[in-house]
């Protein structure tokens, strides 16, 4: 793979335009907005336990982080 620097100044080990490098267009809004309640979901954690978001959170504040991968 070829190292290239993109228009925002970031380096990555992939050529420009590679699908893995495509980010949000500037100004594009996605996902629930500030002021909305996050939709509930149920997903397994690393040990296979089902986590129900709002129920498991209880009365706690939360940070829900969406990331691309832990391993690449």
């Amino acid at each position, binding site marked *: *793979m*070829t*190292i*290239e*620097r*993109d228009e*925002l*100044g*970031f*380096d*990555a*080990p992939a*050529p*420009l*335009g*590679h*699908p*893995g*490098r*495509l*980010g*949000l*267009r*500037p100004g594009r809004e*996605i*996902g*629930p*907005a*500030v*002021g*909305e*309640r*996050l*939709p509930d*979901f149920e*997903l*397994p*954690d*690393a*040990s296979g336990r089902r*986590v129900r*978001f*709002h129920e498991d*959170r209880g*009365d*706690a*504040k*939360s*940070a*829900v*982080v*969406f*990331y*691309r*991968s*832990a*391993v*690449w």
Partner: protein
Amino acid sequence: MLSEFAEKQKIPYPLLSDVDSDVIRHYGILNDQIEVGDAFLYGIPYPGVFVTDERGVVVAKFFHDSYKKRESPELLIDAALGRIELSDDAPRVDGGDAEVKITAAIHGGPGSIRQGIRREVVVRFELGDGLHIYDAPVPDGMVPTTVRVTGPAGLVVEDTIAPPTTPLRLASMDVELRVWSGTVDLRVPIYGAGELVSEVRPLDRDSISIDIEVRYQACDADTCLLPKTERLRIQVPLDVIDIPDISLHTGHGQRVGNYDGTRHLVRLFARKVLPHPLGFLKFLAKSIRLERAARRRGADRA
């Protein structure tokens, strides 16, 4: 895979698997520029963070125009708490005087600069009783509070984020001014770009100087102190990124993590690529085309 990752990276919070990207789709954050067959990429979200209050209502969200831009965890905690929690060991420098104490600190992570990871230069004013400082705009002759952060090429400095002001009516001048009093944190987000702290080249220096010019004028109800310009400098370490130990990434001067992603990649390949052979052929053709274009532009071979 996630359990090994969590254990080796000492991650104390739950890591969830959205294997079929159902939640990602439901939230409307699927990366829709990636096509089925684009190797193991299809199904990833635009990375970002939602911070909620106790009711689960979003109070802050962080999505950027590049997947390289990520918040330091401390900035998420600040968003949840509604205040800036400066760590005692953040790189910092003190200034000011008896009336106005000033502290500038690099907030987030260990205070280092990494490619794309957003930290903040926090300038904290601790104003003596009865004193206030001004937000722009102000009438001629008065000085609004400004913070200017500069550093070497490749240090990206975003716009200053200020807390809400309170209105102050000056009857004598018939104007309403916007002021801050007490403890005031002005925050300037910063991150490194490739020119300064690439993730695919070894670092060429250990640290950089960040210069912070603070200008302000403090007044009480009756009189104003002289305007002041304070120049502060903080030495800030540069840092590389952590990557998993897979041949796809290694060899560019990053810090190779102690977890091996190969097994997971093989599984991803079987799940996402094998069912879509035509899509994958298209992806390979696209990759070759992009590689050739990059070489024509004279980019480095990794």
